[in-house]
């Protein structure tokens, strides 16, 4: 199990509080995008295609903290763009850590070694390093020679300095399950705390439109990749979400589970779709017509989506809905079986 006990306890307390309050919709993870610029141009990324003047903009520390306070989610995932290009990224992380948010700073790690001095190890801070598979696959995905090697070197440096490190892996059409299994072994050997995996979303603005996974193919890939998982593998994810990826469970999307805040405001409805923006978190939660999203809605943009930002909250929600699913979650965490 790759989720720290303190984080699990904090999330459990938070979810129980929301349920006791009768709160129908509540966020679990704030997706904070303090900038859009990146030092890579990955094939499957549709997040960074903006004019240069917008790419040069940064959210201020105050804006980031205000968004986190407004949202109240116990976990903050700092994405982007490449967050380490933000001149005050350490201040942002420190302020969120001071508020006891579990911060996952998502990075391609190209600048990680250089920037490590600005951060302090904390149980609330984890570098979530982008690794899209073994060397060849990762370098192809990020379109850069040595991308894998540089990321691995930075992971080692961060671990040796006492930082928490996890990895996040996006999978596309053509991924080889056997190679991915060996990749999981390699990553765990590095000593990371846990791994996160997810199929990529078919961003309309991404350069490569041919390699996004359709639902059935995603189920087949994840089933083969995760069947008889090794005990050494630790995933920083709900086991129910992994079972969903394997096709063993079905969930409906929880688009409000990982709300997104960026330069334009609160993104409607989710991290992946951009149907507009609102100024406050409350407006996002209360004024969005949520019935237009998710597979059941018939929205064509949601039909093949299995991305963690919509379905991991569904898995967490499901775990609290019955003793059976809670038991299944617990059993999978203890035994490592999916």
């Amino acid at each position, binding site marked *: 199990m790759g989720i720290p006990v303190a984080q699990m306890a904090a999330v459990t307390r938070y979810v129980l509080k929301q349920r006791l309050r009768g709160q129908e919709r509540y966020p679990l993870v704030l997706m904070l995008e303090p900038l859009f610029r990146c030092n890579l141009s990955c*094939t499957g990324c549709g997040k960074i*295609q*903006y*004019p240069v*003047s917008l790419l040069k*903009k940064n959210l201020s520390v105050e804006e980031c903290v205000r968004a986190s306070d407004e949202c109240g989610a116990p976990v903050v995932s700092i994405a982007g763009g490449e967050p380490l290009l933000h001149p005050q990224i350490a201040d942002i992380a420190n302020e969120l850590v001071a508020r006891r948010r579990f911060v996952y700073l998502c990075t391609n790690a190209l600048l990680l070694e250089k920037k490590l001095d600005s951060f302090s190890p904390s149980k609330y801070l984890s570098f979530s390093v982008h690794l899209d598979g073994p060397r060849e696959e990762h370098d192809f995905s990020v*379109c850069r*020679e040595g991308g894998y090697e540089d990321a691995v070197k930075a992971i080692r440096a961060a671990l040796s300095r006492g930082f928490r490190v996890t990895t996040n892996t996006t999978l596309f059409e053509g991924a080889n399950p056997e190679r991915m299994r060996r990749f999981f072994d390699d990553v765990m050997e590095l000593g990371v705390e846990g791994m996160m995996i997810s199929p990529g979303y078919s961003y309309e*603005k991404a*350069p490569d439109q041919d390699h996004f996974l359709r639902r059935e193919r995603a189920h087949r890939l994840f089933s083969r990749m995760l069947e008889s998982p090794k005990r050494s593998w630790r995933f920083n994810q709900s086991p129910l979400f992994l079972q969903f990826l394997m096709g063993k469970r079905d969930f409906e999307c929880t688009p409000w589970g990982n709300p997104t805040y960026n330069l334009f405001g609160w993104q409607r409805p989710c991290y992946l779709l951009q149907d507009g923006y609102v100024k406050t978190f409350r407006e996002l939660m209360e004024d969005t017509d949520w019935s237009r999203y998710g597979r059941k809605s018939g929205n064509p943009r949601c039909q093949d989506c299995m991305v963690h930002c919509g379905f991991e909250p569904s898995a967490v929600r499901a775990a609290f809905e019955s003793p059976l699913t809670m038991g299944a979650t617990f059993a999978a965490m203890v035994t490592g079986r999916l």
Partner: protein
Amino acid sequence: MTDPRLAELVERAFDYRGYVTLRRSDGSSLVGFVYDRDAGHLELFDESATRRVRVALSEIAGIDFTGEDSALRSQQMWERRKGRLEPRDTPTGWEEQRPILLLVAIDRELRSAAQALGLTRRGNRATGRRSGSDFVALSVGIGGGARAAIAAEQPRAVVSCGFCGGIDQVLSPGDLILATAVRDESGQVVETPESLRTAAARGLQGMRFFEGDLACTSSVAATPAEKRALARPGTLAVDMESFTVARAAADVGIPWLALRAVIDPLESSLPAFTRETHGSHLGPALRYAASGPRAIIDLIRLSRDARRAASSLEAGLQRLGAAIASEETRP
């Protein structure tokens, strides 16, 4: 919104990843990036992405897609290089490939800049790499050369650095001034870009430095009376170069800073020979020393204060260099 043509244009503009030009019914136009829309309005960032603008749809006569589509460019780039990876030594910072340019007026200041940043000197130019960024220091003399230097070096940030005279009586020799704005003799003001100044101020934390305005003159303000005449609220010190540098950088949208170390405080006078603008002051200083014991004492004091100023400037530039090297500069 009832006009289906406009409704279609609005949706296209919202989906477009580039700048559009809104043609208004009153004949005016507005360039911006459309990031949201509702039944009655468009929300835009203006062209510099510094201002949000809300425009009523009823004011819009048409929308032209005048800026480059970033999504299309990204797809074309990807198609062109399909299968080919970018080399490993491609810079990982956004603007790291462009140098930071330090402009000084005199040789003594160039020596301090080179010393502070470990740069290698050749003539009036010193170059080197520090904190992952390239630095170029150039001595361009008093009053000119900044514009040509900026055009030639294409830097990502410019720093005007060197010595100055104190206008605020609180200042002592060796105190550092980080300019918040610079003002010339005609009263024109150039404000220092906020983000870079904030990064520089963070870098200088722990040192004795002041943030305030610099007055820039075309001749040396040598006496207390001349310095007092330049006093304005918020103005701390006087130099002869920072305004020219700031104007030249601001005109081409390059962020700039001015860092100055005080040599002569408000109540002290510089010897008359310092008004002369030729390269070396050695001959005039010797002639001045021969004029009597008082002159010798003045020169000893000036030399001590200059050493103090040079030492502060070096320490300040060391900190500043590291701070702005890691800063993603933006206009």
